[in-house]
């Protein structure tokens, strides 16, 4: 039986060209979900195949790659994706945010501010911010074309009527460059302000849903809100129990079955740096 040899970064060149064309369109029309012919990857849909295809298409052999899941470099899926690129592209990897030239992420934006020399690639499960209000692709496409986002504001306002505040805590919709409403992937809304006016290029890949979208550097990303209910991020009563910062998103660790909890940084690299452990 023939054992095949894989191309640089796994994808064949024709697939990369197709993805690269979609990436350029996505950058040219910020926040628009450009369709692309997503391929089956050797990891399941839902595990980050969109992000992996985008990363594979932008990577050069000189890049230093960082992969995080839930803010951590050492979670199983982050490890698995990092190994995939070490094996197929031979790139250097790092856990340190400032050392990375390409960062693939699931559900977080690093706490360390990004620079112009970096590319952030998000893994996206459902790219369509209107999907849970309107399941039909043909309808949501028309809504974007007509810039008809009233239904989204109604949804958010219903939250306020019912709960006294907007009850969306992650995948919080935002408007890119005052045009397209987009889903920033399931990052906590804590991270939404980092999307705005970011020096780094931000690319979003949804493999199963076959969409790529982008936020170019220094682009306005405004989280949807109302004058009387301005957008707010999560706050914690306590600092990180490990490094003491009050500036980061905290994970809750269940210490026992008697209700003892502990709060620590979700961004493990940021926390280690604060503790001087690297």
């Amino acid at each position, binding site marked *: 039986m023939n054992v095949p040899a894989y*191309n*640089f*970064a796994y994808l064949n*060149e*024709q697939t*990369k*060209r*197709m993805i*690269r*064309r*979609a*990436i*350029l*369109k*996505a*950058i*040219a*029309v*910020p926040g*628009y979900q*450009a*369709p692309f012919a997503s391929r089956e990857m050797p990891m399941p849909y839902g595990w980050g195949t969109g992000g992996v295809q985008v990363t594979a*298409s*932008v*990577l*050069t*052999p000189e890049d230093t790659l960082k992969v995080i899941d839930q803010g951590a470099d050492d979670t199983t899926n982050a490890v698995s994706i990092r190994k995939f690129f070490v094996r197929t592209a031979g790139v250097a990897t790092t856990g340190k945010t400032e050392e990375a030239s390409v960062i693939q992420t699931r559900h977080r934006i690093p706490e360390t501010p990004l620079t112009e020399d970096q590319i952030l690639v998000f893994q996206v499960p459902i790219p369509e911010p209107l999907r849970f209000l309107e399941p039909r692709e043909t309808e949501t*496409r*028309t809504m*974007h*074309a*007509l810039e008809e986002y009233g239904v989204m504001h109604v949804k958010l306002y219903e939250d306020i009527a019912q709960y006294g505040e907007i009850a969306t805590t992650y995948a919080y919709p935002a408007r890119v*460059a005052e*045009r*397209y409403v987009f889903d920033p992937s399931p990052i906590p809304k804590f991270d939404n302000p980092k999307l705005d006016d970011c*020096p780094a*290029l931000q690319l979003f890949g949804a493999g199963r849903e076959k969409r790529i979208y*982008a*936020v*170019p*550097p*220094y*682009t306005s990303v405004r989280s949807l809100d109302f004058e009387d209910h301005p957008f707010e991020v999560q706050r914690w009563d306590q600092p990180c129990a490990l490094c003491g910062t009050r500036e980061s998103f905290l994970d809750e660790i269940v210490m026992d079955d008697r209700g003892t909890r502990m709060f620590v940084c979700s961004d493990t690299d940021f926390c280690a740096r604060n503790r001087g452990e690297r």
Partner: protein
Amino acid sequence: MTERGFADAPVQSAHAFRAIMQAMARPGRVQAIDADVKAPAPLLPSAAAVALTLCDFQTPVWLSPRLRDERIVHYLRFHAGAPLVAEPQAAQFVFATAADLPPRLGLLAQGTHEYPDRSATLVIQVAGFVPGSVELSGPGIRGGERFGVVGLDEAFWTAMAENHARFPVGIDAIFAAPGKLAAVPRSTAIRMLESA
């Protein structure tokens, strides 16, 4: 004989794409492009690198009269497998020189409001860049970026400003100079400067 394209396609196209992507993401900022690729004159190696990185059998290509040289046609067919079309409006990629641009940018594929991605990319071969004929602003630009291209006059920039006015439909332009390239996508607002 046909000039060779990329000697190491996976790596060279990755480098070329990074330059093209950064150019598109940072309008008006000039990027160096490793154009270690032979191309039949007058096709510039940088423009050839763009073609080899982005074009294939799925992308109809139109060549402006000055580029419609038999050797260039053969080169693009052989290395990219790209179908060449007679009418610029049927093309996904339009290659031209600053001296013979397609007559009206508004006639190139613009995409639709439902699918703004179904639009043409205009690749213009230019001699080089000069600062200061237009000021660019918009996504990818911090504040404003002064930009200018040798051989492109006010009429061109007026057409590009009209192109921006059609956003989100419209074309995206890549300027390929020897060893360098820059881009102005449809999202970029254009203001003429006095000196232009």
